[in-house]
């Protein structure tokens, strides 16, 4: 065990009591990073000097204030996915296109983290432009799964997942467009939340598919995951799709004190489309064990059917690619980004500059362009948006009846490195359990629920809109009884 504390709250308590300084923590963090990073490759950039400097300042503040800490994340090291802008440090999206891009501003979530005393220790690896399920399409090389170095850590926030699992950091931010937080949480054996659409500001997140994506917290236990979520949630005037101030007040007032009810009862549904054919038997077994445990803890379940799930992968990829083709049109290499030699006219230079995109990114831009082009718009894009309506209606119906829906996060165990990289369709199909959540905008959390062949398996807890705290409660109850908290691989 490389950690001597259980949650970040314990760590902050140690700072207050004077048992430990923030600088100690940061030095330990970088010792760990130095030890495992050559095996894992979770980071694109580490910020050792900056982090130590900030730790010293926080220690000074602590001393001056008579050991009173200000901030929910005071002195806590955190890793940030490299598609979230951190002022004056490269933010590359793991792409050659943005290799030298230095944002002149902070994402809203970064500002919030810093205001609460967090220390950013580095930027984590990811699939290029967050387009992937394996973290293999990064321009900066693949990230390895700390549980088995010949496997993928999941994607696209694979660096964040691997940095947590290998004990490099206690907290990380990821972003989730079709499962990009929950997939690496599942494959790397950590906790990750994709909140209700609109709860977390996207200002400063380099866009892939705006109507689907949310920044979200990743941690090694439910308590830490909730603490960082509390910091990043809320209205932002810089992102007009965030929840309004009035709605936010209502949201925070919403109390789940009585949940589960006084007799400890709660209900959940199991969508048969996500626990039947196509799900690895080992994953199935592990998820059923979790369901039995939830039953013992006061839950009662019914098997349900959400037929439109069978169409959700096609629906998701059409919408995501269409939005990507539009969002990524901004990368002309003229105002920022990769600029090639000036050969030819505007259009030729533009097309040359865009060769800085990797294979999968080009693929998605082109397919999205096709799905939006004259003659195909109704057939693909508009049809997908109609299916989105149906999927929302079906989920809403069940979430009126049940507190949660439960299923695996990933239908399979982590891919071997290289296994799926040249077969995009196979890779897309692995997103079956996660994409419906982005299409509908619902919240869902992935939590470790077991192992097979030493590889982690994740349980997905889906809740109703704006019921993240209910999800946290049940996840916490599960974690305490399943003893999955802070499990680390030997590395």
């Amino acid at each position, binding site marked *: 065990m490389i950690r001597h504390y259980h949650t970040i709250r314990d760590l902050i308590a140690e700072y207050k009591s004077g048992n430990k300084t923030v600088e100690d923590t940061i030095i330990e963090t970088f010792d760990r990073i130095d030890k495992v990073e050559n095996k894992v490759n979770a980071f694109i950039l580490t910020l050792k000097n900056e982090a130590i400097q900030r730790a010293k300042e926080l220690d000074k503040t602590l001393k001056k204030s008579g050991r009173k800490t200000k901030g929910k994340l005071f002195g806590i090291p955190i890793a940030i996915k490299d598609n979230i802008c951190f002022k004056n440090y490269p933010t590359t999206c793991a792409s050659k296109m943005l290799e030298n891009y230095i944002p002149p501003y902070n994402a809203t979530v970064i500002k919030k983290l810093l205001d609460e005393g967090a220390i950013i220790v580095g930027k984590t690896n990811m699939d290029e432009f967050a387009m992937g399920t394996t973290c293999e399409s990064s321009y900066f090389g693949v990230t390895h799964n700390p549980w088995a170095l010949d496997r993928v850590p999941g994607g696209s926030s694979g660096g964040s997942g691997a940095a947590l699992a290998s004990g490099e950091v206690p907290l990380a931010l990821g972003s989730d467009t079709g499962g990009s937080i929950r997939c690496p949480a599942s494959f790397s054996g950590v906790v990750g939340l994709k909140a209700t659409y609109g709860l977390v500001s996207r200002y400063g997140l380099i866009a892939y598919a705006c109507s689907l994506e949310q920044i979200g917290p990743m941690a090694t236990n439910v308590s830490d995951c909730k603490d960082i979520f509390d910091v990043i949630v809320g209205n932002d005037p810089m992102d007009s799709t965030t929840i309004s101030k009035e709605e936010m007040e209502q949201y925070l007032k919403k109390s789940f004190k009585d949940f589960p009810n006084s007799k400890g009862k709660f209900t959940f549904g199991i969508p048969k489309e996500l626990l039947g054919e196509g799900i690895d038997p080992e994953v199935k077994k592990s998820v059923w064990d979790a369901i039995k445990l939830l039953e013992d803890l006061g839950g009662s379940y019914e098997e349900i059917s959400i037929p439109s799930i069978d169409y959700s992968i096609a629906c998701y990829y059409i919408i995501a690619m269409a939005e990507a083709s539009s969002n990524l049109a901004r990368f002309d290499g003229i105002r920022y980004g990769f600029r090639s030699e000036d050969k030819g006219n505007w259009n030729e230079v533009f097309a040359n500059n865009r060769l800085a995109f990797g294979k999968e990114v080009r693929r998605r831009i082109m*397919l999205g362009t096709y799905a939006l082009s004259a003659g195909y718009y109704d057939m693909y894009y508009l049809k997908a948006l109609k299916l989105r309506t149906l999927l929302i209606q079906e989920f809403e119906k069940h979430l009126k009846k049940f507190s949660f829906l439960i299923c695996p996060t990933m239908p399979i165990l982590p891919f071997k490195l290289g296994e799926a990289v040249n077969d995009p369709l196979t890779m897309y199909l692995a997103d079956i359990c996660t994409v419906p959540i982005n299409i509908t905008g619902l919240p869902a959390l992935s939590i470790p629920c077991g192992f097979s062949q030493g590889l982690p398996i994740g349980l997905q807890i889906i809740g109703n809109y704006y019921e993240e705290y209910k999800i946290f409660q049940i996840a916490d109850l599960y974690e305490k009884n399943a003893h999955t908290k802070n499990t680390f691989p030997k590395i």
Partner: protein
Amino acid sequence: MTEDLTDDDIKHVAWLARIKLESQEEINEYKTTFNDILRYFKKINEIDTEKVRPTFHISRSVNRFREDEIKESLKEDEIMQNVPKRKDKFIVSPRII
């Protein structure tokens, strides 16, 4: 139902997306993958959506307005710091015509 994509279709989409195609091999690769993926996408036509309205966005809020106030924004140097080719205060662009 549409036919499979041809070389010309790939070239047309690549042009629309301003992505340069470098070889015939690349065109062939796109053709195979895209046709596989599009065949899978066509699965969505199995469902009747005649009377269903599309959902473009989950957010239920409509236009959100703010006062048009003058606020501090990024400095010129900050905005220009990422420009790959510049001359004085200007961004150098390729020839347009």
